[in-house]
Each structure stands twice: as structure tokens, then as C-alpha cells.
């Protein structure tokens, strides 16, 4: 007797209302579009997330590995009721956020990863995802965790999240924090920004292609640099050590 195992393994997604794309002006003066993507767009995103797997700072490695797994699972139908939003500047991928619906009243925030630093792109994308949970999906509450100190500052401190420590979060089973509708309403005027509708040309550019980051992480110059100057792009430590050893002191 033939058994269609795929029918058993593949979750049947509940229909989720779509996220209506929005845009906002960044500190750089550029406009950033936040929009929902389909499964078909996932491979493009994975390609740009992959290099971050090797960036140790700020838990980029852990977050990128998890985002990679979650998006791949979404693409290959191994995740229940997941959605993915991307943030793009002129087509360039600058942030990815994802999450899922647990029950009609409860959301599970999965990840936020910024591919450009210093412009609040991560914070803006996170705000859009919370807006999706609360306003579009009608969740009363979203469960959240942070892997990095900057994540903690952006979510727990800026939104003053409530503790739900007796509820393990789906990410690593760690104690959850919660954004309630009330907390979100309080944050609306200061943290949640963006305009709709997105001008058609701007949206078309974003949808046409998910372009790679303009400033992707570069692999360390060599092993010594990798161990001693991970966050030091000009590799002073490396050059200095070579000088001490009497060798060449090129800024490789």
C-alpha cells in the first residue's frame, strides 16, 4: 500500500492575512520598503544570510543560522504558519524578520536580523512585524526573546516588554517576554513608523529583485586576524604582530 509520507510531514498552513507593504525614510535619507515575501523569494534571501553565519560579533552567527533554518523550513514546508518580511533599500536587502502564529490570539516572534548597521533598520523592521501580529493578525500578545544585548535593548527595554518567564519560547526553550496589545499601543507614536501605500515604482523595484547587501561581511584576512582582530577591519593587531615578528607588515 502506497503511503504519501509528504502529506503527513507537510503542515497545512492556516490562511494568514497578508502584511500590507510600507516604507519609511532612514537616517541616511534613503527610503526603506518593508514587505512580505513568498516561498519563492526565500532562496534569494538565504544567499544573502549565509555569509552572516560566520560573523561571531553580536550573535550574528547564531541568529543567522537560526534564520537560515527557519526560512529553509518555510521554503520546504516544514514550519507551521510562518511568515517572512524583508526590508529593502533600492532593492538591496537590509533586514529580515520572521515569526509565526501559534493560535489566533498568540504570535511567536522568531528573528530580526539587520544587514546594515547604524540606521535602526532592525528596529524599524521589528516594529513592522509587531504591527503585523497585533493589527493585521489580531494577536493579543506576541512572545519574544533576544539573543544579543542590542536585541535586548531594542525589544525588552524600548518596548518595556512584560515577563512571561513560565512560558518557554520556541527559540531554545528560554523564558519568554511578551508584547501585549496595550504595550504596542503605547509604543505606536514613538517606535512604529512608516507610510502606506508604497509608491508603485518603489514597490516594483523592491519586488523586481532582492539584491545583495552593499557592504557584506568580509572573511578575515588570515587565521591570525581571525583569532585576534575579529572586529578590527583594519587589522591593526595583525599588522602589529607581524611587525613584532619581524615579518612583512602589509595591511592584507
Amino acid at each position: 500500500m502506497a503511503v504519501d509520507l509528504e502529506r503527513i510531514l507537510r503542515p497545512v498552513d492556516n490562511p494568514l492575512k497578508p502584511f500590507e507593504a510600507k516604507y519609511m525614510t532612514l537616517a541616511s535619507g534613503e527610503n526603506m520598503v518593508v514587505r512580505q515575501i513568498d516561498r519563492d523569494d526565500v532562496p534569494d534571501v538565504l544567499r544573502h544570510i549565509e555569509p552572516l553565519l560566520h560573523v561571531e560579533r553580536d550573535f550574528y552567527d547564531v541568529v543567522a543560522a537560526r534564520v537560515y533554518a527557519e526560512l529553509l523550513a518555510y521554503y520546504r514546508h516544514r514550519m507551521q504558519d510562518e511568515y517572512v518580511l524583508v526590508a529593502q533599500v533600492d532593492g538591496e536587502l537590509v533586514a529580515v524578520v520572521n515569526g509565526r502564529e501559534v493560535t489566533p490570539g498568540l504570535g511567536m516572534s522568531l528573528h530580526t536580523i539587520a544587514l546594515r548597521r547604524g540606521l535602526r533598520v532592525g528596529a524599524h523592521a521589528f516594529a513592522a512585524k509587531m504591527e503585523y501580529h497585533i493589527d493585521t493578525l489580531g494577536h493579543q500578545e506576541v512572545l519574544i526573546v533576544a539573543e544579543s544585548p542590542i536585541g535586548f535593548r531594542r525589544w525588552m527595554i524600548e518596548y518595556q516588554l512584560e515577563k512571561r518567564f513560565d512560558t518557554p519560547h520556541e527559540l531554545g526553550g528560554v523564558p519568554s517576554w511578551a508584547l501585549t496589545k496595550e504595550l504596542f499601543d503605547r509604543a505606536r507614536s514613538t517606535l512604529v513608523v512608516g507610510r502606506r501605500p508604497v509608491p508603485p515604482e518603489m514597490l516594483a523595484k523592491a519586488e523586481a529583485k532582492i539584491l545583495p547587501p552593499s557592504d557584506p561581511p568580509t572573511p578575515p584576512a588570515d587565521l591570525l586576524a581571525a583569532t585576534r582582530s575579529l572586529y578590527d577591519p583594519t587589522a591593526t593587531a595583525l599588522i602589529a604582530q607581524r611587525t613584532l615578528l619581524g615579518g612583512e607588515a602589509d595591511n592584507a
Partner: protein
Amino acid sequence: MRDVYVGGIGITTFTRLEYPLSEIAAYPAMMALKDAGIRDVDHLYVANMGSARVNHQTALASAVVDSLSLTPAGAAVIENGPASGASALKAGFAAVASGLHDVVLVSGAERMREVNNLEATDFVATLTHPLAEYIYGVTLPSHAAMFTRLYMEKYGLTERHLAMVAVKNQNNAMLNEFAHLHQPITIEGILDSPEAMTNNPYVAEPLRFFDACPVSDGGAAVILVSDDVAKTIDRPLIRLAGVGQATDTHAVHEREEPTDLLAVRRAAAQSFEMAGLRPEDVDVAELHDAFTILEIVESEEVGFFPKGEGHVALEKGETAIDGSLPINPSGGLKGKGHPVGATGVAQAHEIVTQLRGEAGDRQVDGPQVGFTCNFGGFGNNVVCLTFVREGR
């Protein structure tokens, strides 16, 4: 007094550095030794503000002199708040000028990212008056904010002027490979767009996020040498021609006119007098813009512009890299970053780089005289240095 020259310079990227503080001080020192082509020094000064509190390490100079294999040279730490860097350069200057030493290595280093931002802010706030300021919750951003409000009322400066400093300096930092911030910003994005208030929220009104420098790790080193040693070094000849230092009341509210930064005025005047120069002789300057307001006010107090008119010069573009008096081509503390103990040395590093004509894309056109202002406390301990390019 003997003449004092800059033999060599070195710097790390200002960012978050994961190696120990002693190495953050040692690496730029090694670069400076290489730059000067010398191996031996008579004395080492290490400028640092927070090792004991932030990194749980004291007697930093002993660690650094050993890791540089410079023992038995003398070594000492200079801690003078955010003015530690230029204070250490002053100590080095005095040692060489007096004839006590011929070669003094000055290395400034700070590792502030070892703690979170809240702790870093608290650590810097310990420089305020413990009984009149600190216990009431005063921090450096709040000090700067109160000062800014008074300044705005008195001189008509607006938030737009502050934003112009932020934009100028973050954009200059784009041209500096050692700078912490590599992200251009625009007035539209931080002030005018509907999202500007979220992009650039108030930190301590009227100062916003982009008015403050980031919290950085980093190190910088300068080697000061005597005339005789300078002759043996095959690098452009840069003389540390003027050194000035002045203090003011510890608590800011005790000042007769809090909008006057008298210590800046006096330190600059001393420095110019020693160098035999005037503010109008300066071709390039690095001023201590821990907050954007400070660049404007210091540019007036050191004598570049009349009091209350610094923002007018800024508006006219006079302080841009291609302006008549470029200020903070390195990106300043705002764009390059502010590892507190290293800052004064890093300012000197930039000025020497500029005077040597080695600043690449941010090179100012043919400067002969450069100036630094390293601002400690909230203006209660300030060191100003004047550098001159000579001969070759």
C-alpha cells in the same frame, strides 16, 4: 626648553575590540615604533580613564611596557578623564622638552564596550561632582543638554545646526578607515522626514541620538622625540609647538556664565602663545565633539570664530573638509568614535596625518598648522595642542 617633534604614530580601528586593553594600547604603539623606525624608548605614558572600573585592571602602564618588550623603560598611566590623551602628550612633551628623555611613547587606550551602554554612561558620569552632580543623576548627555539649551537661548543656535555637525562628521568618517561609524546620514533622515523622530529620538532634550558620539574601544599612539632624534627619522618633520592646559570649576553650576568654556579659551590661548601663532594661522583642527554642540562652542572659544558665531561658519561650510578651516576631518568623536582615554592621542594622530599629507580621501589642502582640543570633565580640564609642519 628643547623643541619636541613627532617621531611616529599608530592607531587601531575604533569599534568594538575583543582583545585585552593592554593589547589595545600596545598595537598602536607598535605601529608608531614601526612608523618611526625605532625600537627603544626612554619612557612610556599610557593614557586611560577606566581600566580599574571597566576592565578590572590597574597599573596598565606596567602591563603595556612589558608586552612591548620595552622594559626597563619608565612607564606610568595618566588618568585625567576624557582629557587623559592630550594630558599624556603634555607629560611626554615636558619630559622631552626638559631634556629628561629623548624618546617618549604616548599610547592612549580604552575598552569601554566590555560593559553595556548603561554602565559605560555611568562610568563616564563618575567624572562629575560626586555630591553636587553625580548623586542627582547627572550624566554627560544631561550636562550637555542643559548647556545646549542655555546656548540656544543665548545665541540663537538651533537643532538644525547640531544636526549639520552630525551629518558633516559622520560623512567625514566615511573617508576614514579607522572610524567607528561608516554610515552616512542626511538632514532629511534625522530631522525632516516623518520618521526622523524615531530615527533620531531625544536622548536628553534638545540633544538627540545622532548628537552623541558612539561608545567605542580603541587605541592610538604618538612618539615624541628630541630634535636630535628627529633628525635621524625619515618622516616629515612635525613639531609639537604649543601645549596649553587649563581648568575650571568642577561643578558646572558654579561658573559665573555657564555658556562660557573658559578652560577651553585659556588652554587654547596658552597653546597658541607657546607656538607663537594665532587661531587664524590654523589650517586644520580636531575638536572634542563628544556632543555636536561642543564642536560649535569650542570653535568659538579657541578663537576660530567670534563667540556665538560658530554655527554661522558651520552653515557657510567653512568647517567642511574643503572649507576655509576644516574641523574634524577624521569624523571627530562623533564619527570616528570616542574611546575616552585614547581620544586626545587620536586627535594628534589625525593632525599629524594631515600635516604629513597622508590622509588620503579626507586630506585637507596643504596644511602647515594643525590644532587639537581635548575636553575633559564638562569643560573643567582642557588640553590644547598646536602642531606645525617644518622643512621636509
